[in-house]
């Protein structure tokens, strides 16, 4: 990991854009691989994907702060197994694979065909937290599924089209 690298995770502290040094993340060196997986789970299309919104930082923040140490170990072990799998299938680490090959690996995991439990558990956490981070990002809540902060109304008979 590049020492002193700084990312600007707007999703963490929107409003005031505060810089969080990567070093403050205990598992900061896992940012690239988690970002790659997150981007396969929710890719960039004509609108931003998970990586554009920095969701990988949210995923790692949650793993660090909201899970037991043993789950954190499982998570890290799972990431190692992801690289093992990727090397078995394509002869390189996950982040070095093409997006197509990365998607093929994730497809493997989704189908859960005889893979180590740590990898499956790790992926489940990444997927759940990627979806959560993406759906509660400033971008999605202000540009896509606009959240009304103060609706000031309640209609109990709203017609469905």
């Amino acid at each position: 990991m590049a020492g002193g690298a700084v990312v600007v995770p707007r999703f963490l502290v929107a409003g005031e854009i505060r810089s969080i040094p990567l070093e403050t993340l205990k598992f900061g060196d896992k940012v690239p691989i988690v970002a790659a997986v997150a981007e396969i789970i929710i890719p960039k299309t004509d609108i931003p994907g998970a990586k554009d919104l920095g969701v990988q930082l949210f995923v790692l923040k949650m793993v660090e702060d909201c899970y037991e140490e043993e789950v954190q170990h499982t998570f890290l072990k799972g990431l190692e197994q992801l690289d093992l799998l990727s090397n078995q299938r394509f002869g390189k680490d996950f982040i070095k694979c093409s997006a197509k090959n990365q998607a093929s690996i994730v497809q493997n995991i989704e189908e859960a065909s005889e893979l180590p439990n740590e990898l499956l558990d790790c992926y489940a956490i990444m997927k759940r937290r990627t979806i959560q981070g993406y759906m509660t990002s400033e971008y999605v809540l202000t540009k896509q599924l606009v959240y009304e902060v103060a609706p000031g109304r309640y209609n109990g008979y709203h017609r469905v089209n």
Partner: protein
Amino acid sequence: MANLNIESAKQRTFDAIVIGSGISGGWAAKELTEGGLNTLVLERGRDVKHGVDYPTASKNAWEFEHRGEIPLTIQKENPILIRANAFSEGTAHFFVKDNEHPYIQEKEFDWIRGYQVGGRSLLWARQTQRWSDFDFEGPDRDGFAVDWPIRYKDIAHWYSHVEKFAGIAGNKDGLAELPDGEFLPAFPLNAVEDYFAQQLKDKFPGRHVISGRCAHLSQPNPVHYEQGRGRCLSRTICNRGCPLGGYYSSNSSTLPWAERTGRMTLRPFSVVHSIIYDDAKGKATGVRVVDTESKELVEFYAKIVFVNAGSLNTNLILLNSVSDRFPQGLGNDNGLLGKYIAFHNYSASISAEYEGLMEYTTDGRRPTGGYIPRFRNVFKQETDFLRGYACGFSASRRTLSDTDQFGAGLKNELLNPHLGTWRVGSHMMGETIPKEHNQVALDANRTDAWGIPLLKIAVEYDDNDERMRNDYLAQFEEMFAAAGFINIRPQKREMAPGLDIHEMGGVRMGRDPKTSLLNAWNQIHSCKNVFVTDGACMTSTSTQNPSLTYMAITARAANFAVEELKKQNL
């Protein structure tokens, strides 16, 4: 030096002292200052200024590092508090952490507290249903506790008084068991809630679904604007504090009102050690306070004292107020102080789905839901358990996405969710029977950070509670099935007493000094210038969320106190 002391004592002398600034203390402060009394309001925690000290009130979802989740280290440090639903990243600063004020659980009890100006009035569920005589007459009719010394007619006027000022949204439903009040327009029920209401009307006469009456300004009146409050905009993140003053709290309403009289002195960081009783004068003369910043013991003096420290802390203060006359605690001639603690039974809920009325959904939000007043044993005893339960009842449709995929397909699903079927849910709010062995007492050895004995709590459920929740689940399975709901899922929740955050009693009102601590005006029988008007005064619990009744009882007692002072009776 002597002169200095006299001067200092003068500065520490007031007409009235109110211990606590929560939902009932705020009302005592308002009524006493309006009655012309210079009033000292003591709060053990820090100050929380309305609007100013709500740091999370306007934060967006993405501005919370953990999206509201409490990090694991904080969870582990707070095994009790973490069970409280409202405890989240957005509200954590309003809750007492487990290590901040320990207590002794002789039986498992989750004591959930908010030590700050406004207390738990910042955190309450804001449901405000009146009691009726079916509630006040309960102990007498069913032979438990003691007879309430008041009836509905004694308090009806005071319900109106506090409702008009606090602002209560609701319908006039015309139910004898849940009297109507002074209402702002109600928040509406939705299609399925109305449907269920009609189903009950047709198939289960006597059971009603109404819009839960709540302390929200659906349409403010001039008196609310005068308080600096505005219309509730259904943000529904109330427990972070509402900068609009859309819901009632001491901070947004009674305390600033009292302050404007120029007669209130608010003193945060003041833990009350005990009430000072003067044997010669035969009455209380003030309170001893530990200043939590300077650690000094300071005395304050007044003609009357209102104890509104929050039910169990009120018990603690009175138990710790020992004198030659009252060696067992202030007013405790009969040994019943701290006994007959009760609470509300929330230990069951039920959910289901409904596939009808799919042409409708809901739009916008509301700060309340449906409410089903108690229908068991109301007019006569009809089951194998005493008393009954009120219920929440709400319906909504969730938006769903198929997440069993990944990539552009998943993204498309997430950003274009579809509406699911209607989901309905209900929870019970059961009356529990006050019993002598459900009690609190002071520990003989251990003290807290301020040198005050720790409270020992021994409160538990009983067989009546178990029979009641079985009945609740059975009745709702039947009613849900009759309404055509499917996938009905009854659920028991094993939760300790206290987590309902409706702990009551220990200093109960009654007619007879031999069997109660307080009279019909909330005066301690044997020390009439001390009034207890928070949850500690409750003789029984009924099923309604209790805050509105505390407010009405407090306003009534405070106005009585002002009159009695004028007549020089205190």
